[in-house]
């Protein structure tokens, strides 16, 4: 369960996120969409405990990320938009460290299984700086999945992946959700939301413009072609405020 209540984040007086509240229940996949600078990454980084909130509460599996950060982080997996890994370590060493960090006993079998599912088995002992961006993305995801987190946050998860990689990661996200993980995906790829998400939140200028189930948001715009409907919904919602301001 991911719960955000009245979350705001200010940088030197500039409000990156304003009074955001939402909940992602186990099994749900929330798509976070919005133009650049809408506050998506700030929200994810605050949920991870990387940036402290200016006000409000954020909790992961009922643990407040500010008051009980370690308990919250034990239940969290985060895949950043740019998969940075430790250059001098191999793929397997990343998994070994992650297992130690999250106290995963006898991790070898699950780690091997993750490597197999992401077709990384043959890269087990490769230094990560020799991997392509897509491969590094897969390693980051494998590390995030290793401790079976109850909440998983993806920031642009499909960037740099080949079609096989996209399919395997979409499949993995579905599986994690069906096993009870609460998932948030931030992306600019509207088609990704269409195929994966159960819920949708549209952010613009740090504010929530729409939040609901995918079918509700699409139904509101009444289009039969689902891709066009999502696109129409996105542009209509993000431009509403701008038109209103004129």
């Amino acid at each position: 369960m991911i719960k955000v209540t009245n979350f705001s984040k200010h940088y030197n007086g500039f409000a990156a996120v304003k009074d955001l509240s939402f909940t992602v229940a186990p099994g749900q996949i929330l798509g976070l969409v919005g133009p650049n600078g809408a506050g998506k990454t700030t929200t994810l980084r605050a949920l991870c405990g990387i940036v402290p909130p200016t006000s409000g509460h954020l909790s992961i599996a009922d643990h407040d990320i500010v008051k009980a950060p370690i308990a919250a982080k034990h239940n969290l997996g985060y895949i950043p938009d740019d998969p940075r890994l430790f250059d001098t370590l191999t793929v397997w060493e990343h998994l070994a460290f992650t297992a130690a960090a999250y106290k995963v006993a006898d991790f070898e079998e699950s780690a091997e299984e993750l490597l197999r599912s992401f077709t990384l088995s043959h890269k087990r002992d490769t230094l990560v700086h020799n991997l392509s961006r897509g491969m590094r993305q897969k390693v980051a995801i494998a590390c995030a999945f290793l401790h079976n987190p109850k909440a998983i946050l993806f920031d642009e998860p499909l960037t740099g992946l080949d079609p096989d990689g996209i399919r395997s990661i979409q499949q993995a996200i579905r599986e994690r959700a069906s096993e009870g993980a609460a998932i948030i995906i931030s992306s600019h790829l509207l088609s990704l939301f269409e195929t994966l998400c159960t819920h949708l939140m549209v952010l613009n200028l740090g504010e929530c413009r729409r939040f609901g189930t995918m079918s509700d948001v699409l139904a509101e715009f009444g289009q039969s072609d689902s891709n066009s409907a999502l696109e129409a919904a996105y542009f209509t919602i993000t431009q509403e405020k701008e038109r209103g301001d004129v």
Partner: protein
Amino acid sequence: MDAALLKLLVMRMRGGLRLRLMQVISLRGALFLLAMVGIVWLLVASRDTIPNAELLDIARFDPEAIHARISTFMPLGLLGMTLLTVVLTTGPSFHYSPTEINFLFVGPFSRRDLILYKFIAYAAGAGLSAALIIPFAQAQTGSVLTAFLAAFLTLLFVQLNSAAAGMAWQAFEGNRLARLKWPSMAVLFVFAVGAIVYAAAAPDQTIFDLLSELRHSWIGTVILIPYIVFTELFLARTQSSHLAFWGIMAVLINVALLWAVVRLDGRTSERSLKDNARLSDRWERMKQGGSFWATERIEVRSIPNAPTLAGVGPIAWRQAIKAVRNSSKVIAVFIVVAACAGPLAAVVGIPITDDRALVMLLFFFAFILPRTLICDFRGDLSRMETYKMLPIAPWRICMGQLVVQVLLAYIVALTMIVSVLLFEDRLTAPVALALALFALPLTFLIYAVENTIFLLFPAKLVPMGRADFEFLGRAVVEFIVKMVIILVAVSAAAGVGTFTFMTLRTTWVLPGMAGWLTMILITGLATIAMQYAFRRFVVAEAFD
């Protein structure tokens, strides 16, 4: 500290070692390592036969004089570093890479664990650095163990002290009294300038006498107490009780500072995150061959376009923009340093023609300046594809790339010549004019050689962490090659000048012109070599 972080440290150190071994077993890595080891060995082995060996080996000075100097000036130097940290702190006290932020900040670790993790990583590096310092400190401390301990504890202190001072200042910044920072600094600056002027005016006192008096006064001793502890470590020689006492004091100070850093971290974590991101951007830029410093302004005024000059203009224009926007601070620092050369030489009492001063000047112009101020091919490794595609003749591209770099270095050289002319009686105006004339082709030659080597053997401009033997070896070999070429060029110019003088038996004007023209000819040849290297450069091979 969390066991997982300890495991990560061990794995990272093992990984670092693995990479170094992989470097060394490659032919290039082995050759550069051998070159570096050989040169260091030559320096050490030949110190008894070089007449001015004291340039490289302080042990040849009077040991008691060195002892007194360390006792007096090391605490002052450490205090100066602390003040500079407070004034200039713009970066984080402990730098976390983006990887560490993404992996560790999200992981189930407390901030205290992360600080300890970083501290242990730094301590391991400090241990390595201390081992490298041993040969230089051993003559003073008496044994390998004392040299290592003194260097290790002092390096830890420098890092922790900078971190604590910087974080304390960041935590204090919101306070109303923080507004007094710059006025206080201005008062200190005026006081320092006043002391320098007083020392210069007083016939029987130098600035060092004043500093020595301050250090040994009761107020100076009180202010410098923490720094004196670390100084005493270097002065302990082999007296075990002396060493044990100051060693324990040093450890206690370091522990107290580490505690302060952990306590202060909570108040500065957000600022630290922002600074980390900025520092990481800088390193990324440097890895791409860019400048460490870069403008943080979002919108900037454009510089008027240069005349085309058949292609040379636009290339030089781009480098000029880069210099103005990214390197203006570095250029300003170098010009100030050059302007201070004359007064400094006068205050210290070392004439600019002294061997030590000449070696320092050579090192400054042939190594420090070219390695720090980069506005040519060396900073454009990731843009070589663009240069290769341009419909401009290679020699014009080479000239365009060199123009700004050479002019900037030449301005620094001219500033130094003028500064020395004003403060050094031995340097007459005609000699200064000759130096100014010869400095231009010489500067051009330095950068043409620097770029030719870079184009023939492209490599990164930043080392791969500590103990990057290939990088260090390469830097030493490049410096030696550059020195040999400059020596040959200067000898040729001097030879032609002398020959002209012997033949014509005239004033020094004609021989000087002959020598100068010889230098110009040599720079022309260097440009041809550089153009060849640019033609030969293969983009794909440089991006391994």
